[in-house]
């Protein structure tokens, strides 16, 4: 097993036969709906369907009928994971990596089907759905390779008469609390990191996407991960809360909203009876991501870059751009082109290759976007929408993408994470003013800069608080191994998923110092 890593190639959707394969996969999966998603603990499946995931574009279509995990399931899962982790963690990193790599192979073999599942369960457009599957494969293979690298341990200072070694030991049980917007990729990433380093994992997927999570757990079990080492615990917030509070959980890997993330950090800090360790929390939370456009930017690049960053997957990515801070010299020209380009965005079903903006995940998300747009308009901002008349018929959670021009700098619409297709455009006098506005933000996940001056780029990169800065391109689309991803400030704990130091969060370093002197002789 080598440590060279290559990203899984995306499907070449510009070729018609590839598109036809996906359409066929979707038709095939539609015939199998609804998918039963059980609780899986120690290899045992328990099915008593209690909630459902639905197609956001056609909410009457039930995608999965899932069994919510009970408190007893959570207890059993944590106990099984703790027990299995002892054997799993004792295996060599190479052995664990081989299992994860096999799991990646299982996902690869089902990639068309899994992309279709993400289209159905999360209304993820094809290209994004395919990218989600690829990223899941990438996480498995990347962390597999990284775990082997980590096992060697770092070099320490050695002096005559003593031997110092440092090795990393798995922390124990990892609770993974995953979001729906990258239903395979992010659940897989956090799970793979825990398993690669020898932990047992209890996975609580988002209630909106249990079927995608089931595919992951099946792949891991089929690949030879011990049955106890991976549990599937579908359910709502109470399942996650039970895991967080559980004395047997050592590490909590969470991706989701800021409010939930802060609550997890609070709860995890409380030492409960029976707990003999401090819990560690890895939290990837929200963003309020700004793209700055300098006067020398190429607007031909800026317009598509902004559109894709703000409205791709209807803005439902933590990396999505929601504020454009534009140098006043080009603000008018850019705004005119953006408004015109907004009209070209096609709101439609995720399964249509022509769709630019798919439906939102649920009705409350649509209401949230509409509320912010209405409030901004009431406060005097100019709000441009694509024609509401062009929205598709039906009960899908479609929303017209919105451009909010000249909002007040302290309005909620420029402060809060909205997680929908809404972009504010704010003229700034210069880059200094743009930086000052960004500086006041609580979030610092991604950022963008369009500039053609190398000095500007360098100075901005030094100053920006964000975890991931994208220059002269859109602000989404981080790739495993190429753009390790994660935010600062209230956007997260500063860890970088898909990067070389991520696995350190899942292990504890142990140093052994041995005196090698016997009878005055170093042996």
């Amino acid at each position, binding site marked *: 097993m080598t440590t060279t890593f290559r990203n899984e190639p995306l499907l070449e959707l510009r070729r018609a036969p590839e598109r036809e394969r996906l359409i066929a996969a979707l038709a095939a999966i539609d015939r199998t709906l609804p998918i039963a998603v059980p609780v899986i603990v120690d290899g045992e499946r328990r099915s008593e369907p209690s909630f459902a995931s639905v197609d956001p574009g056609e909410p009457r279509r039930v995608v999965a009928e899932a069994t919510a995990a009970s408190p007893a399931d959570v207890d059993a899962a944590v106990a099984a994971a703790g027990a299995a982790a002892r054997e799993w963690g004792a295996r060599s990193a190479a052995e664990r990596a081989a299992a994860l790599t096999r799991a990646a192979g299982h996902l690869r073999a089902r990639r068309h089907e899994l992309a279709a599942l993400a289209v159905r369960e999360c209304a993820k457009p094809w290209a994004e759905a395919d990218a989600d599957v690829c990223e899941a494969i990438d996480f498995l293979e990347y962390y597999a390779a990284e775990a082997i690298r980590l096992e060697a341990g770092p070099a320490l200072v050695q002096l005559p008469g003593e031997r110092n070694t440092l090795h990393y030991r798995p922390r124990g049980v990892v609770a993974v609390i995953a979001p729906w917007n990258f239903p395979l990729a*992010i659940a897989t990433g956090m799970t793979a990191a825990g398993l690669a380093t020898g932990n047992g994992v209890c996975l609580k997927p988002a209630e909106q996407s249990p079927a995608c999570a089931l595919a992951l757990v099946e792949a891991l079990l089929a690949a030879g991960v011990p049955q106890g080492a991976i549990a599937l615990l579908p359910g709502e917030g109470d399942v996650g809360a039970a895991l967080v509070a559980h004395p047997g959980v050592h590490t909590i890997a969470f991706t989701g909203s800021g409010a939930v993330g802060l609550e997890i950090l609070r709860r995890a800090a409380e030492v409960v009876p029976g707990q003999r360790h401090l819990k560690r929390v890895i939290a990837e939370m929200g963003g309020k991501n700004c793209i700055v456009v300098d006067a020398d930017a190429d607007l031909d690049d800026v317009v598509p870059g902004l559109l894709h960053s703000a409205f791709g997957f209807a803005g439902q990515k933590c990396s999505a751009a929601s504020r454009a801070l534009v140098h006043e010299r080009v603000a008018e020209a850019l705004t005119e082109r953006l408004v015109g380009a907004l009209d070209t965005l096609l709101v439609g079903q995720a399964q249509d290759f022509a769709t630019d903006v798919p439906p939102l995940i649920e009705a409350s998300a649509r209401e949230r976007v509409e509320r912010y747009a209405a409030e901004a308009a009431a406060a005097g901002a100019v709000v441009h929408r694509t024609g509401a008349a062009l929205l598709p018929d039906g009960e899908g959670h479609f929303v017209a993408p919105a451009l909010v021009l000249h909002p007040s700098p302290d309005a909620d619409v420029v402060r809060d994470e909205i997680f929908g297709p809404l972009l504010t455009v704010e003229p700034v006098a210069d880059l200094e003013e743009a930086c000052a506005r960004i500086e006041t933000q609580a979030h610092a996940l991604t950022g963008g800069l369009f500039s053609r001056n*190398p000095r500007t780029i360098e100075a901005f990169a030094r100053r920006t608080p964000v975890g991931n800065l994208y220059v002269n391109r859109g602000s989404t689309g981080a790739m495993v191994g190429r753009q390790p991803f994660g935010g600062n400030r209230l956007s997260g704990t500063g860890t970088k998923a898909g990067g070389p130091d991520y696995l350190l969060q899942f292990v504890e370093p142990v140093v052994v110092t041995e005196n090698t002197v016997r009878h005055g002789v170093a042996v």
Partner: protein
Amino acid sequence: MRSPALRPAVSAERHWTFAQSILGIRPWSANARQTYDRAMGELLTNALAEAPAPALELDDEIVALGRRLARRSSLLRHARRAAQDRGMALVARDPQVRAALFRLVDVAPACAGPAELAEHLSAFLAGVERRTVAAVASRAAVAPGTRWAAGRAATVAVRAMAGRFIVGETPAAATRTLRSLWEHGAAVSVDLLGEATVTPAEGRAYAARCDDALVRLAADAARWPARPLLETDAAGPLPRVNLSVKVTALTPLVRAEAPERGRADAAALLRPLLRRARDVGAHLHIDMESLDSRELILELVLELLSEPEFAAGPSAGIVLQAYLRDAEETLEHVLDWSRATPRTPPLTVRLVKGAYWDHETIEAAQHGWDPPVWTEKVESDRCFERVTRRLLDAWADERLVRPAIASHNLRSIAHAIVYARHRGLAPADLELQVLRGLGDDLQDALAAEGLRGRTYCPVGDLVAGMAYLVRRLLENTSNDSFLASRVGGAELDRLLSAP
């Protein structure tokens, strides 16, 4: 997190930014090439084995003709052009200076004045300060006393270079040059430069400019003197007015994954242009761009030309890119269509190597795809010759599509001319195309040889033309470019030998 990277419709004028990034990170580029070469090794070997060598007796003729064209074009070369060429060759030798030049030309239209341009210039040259010429320019661009002058000089230099490649800011301003070319034995094709189209209004404005150009050029061309060689081939009259249009400039809806969207939108604007071209007796040529839009463009054009109202005109054409591995399949598709869709005049096929090699290569690498283009230039050259012969055969045997061979590579051109003669075609039955600013000497040599040439003439303002300009500069200074190696003697013979 991850999405399928950035996939906006890559407009006609934007591919060079990718090329520029290659210039910025040259080691990456070299590695990428090696990776492809390894990955494609087997395929390449097979392709090499399959490539039929042209008949030897033609090869001698090709070399002789190539030498004659080289001699004629060097005799005809303008002194100032030659100096510019030498300057560019000098620039091309240093990758860092070359990158700085591209970046400067690229950003020039966005700068508010000489001082701002000077600020960029000094930033671009910051990394190459030890080199003499660059160091002087860099210091001048920083010093308060000379800053404005340095920026002004850079502005003038950029405009001078743009003037070489762009024949005028508007069709009206270009008419004198176009007529002069015609009088000197060169037909023209006009290309209206523009910024990327991201809104429907921009698409409509471009269509209106095209329509206006067709009308104006037709009125003007009616007064040009007769040039029989340029006006008739075996299939009948050849329009004097020839306009090249870009589909990505007509519609902002080009989506690689959903070609039907852009096709419907572009058809609504292209149809009136075809009617106008038919009514004023002009030729409309639809350019090819990156692979992301090929399916859209090809199917759009073939579909429109199949409509009954266009059965008797206008003259129209498409482009075939020999650097694509499937160029021959595409040609067969077009030939099949032509056979099934008899119309007068026949479709023109302009054969090019292709201008988006860097874009295609980078996009494939970033997505983990096999590159759709040949990774070795010699493979493109071979494919170009195979497609040339197929085109000329189809013309000689069936009068299927009018061949137009567009290249500055003497070997490629000489091969086409000699093969056409070998097939018994008259000089008027083979069109040879060159680019304004790059192929001018060559065009003169072709005219002197009694051959039918056409010069592709961009029209537009400096801002709009900048991207085109950068692409031309890139071509002119690329190591692979035949133009960069204007040589004689044994070196010339090597370049004229079969690829």
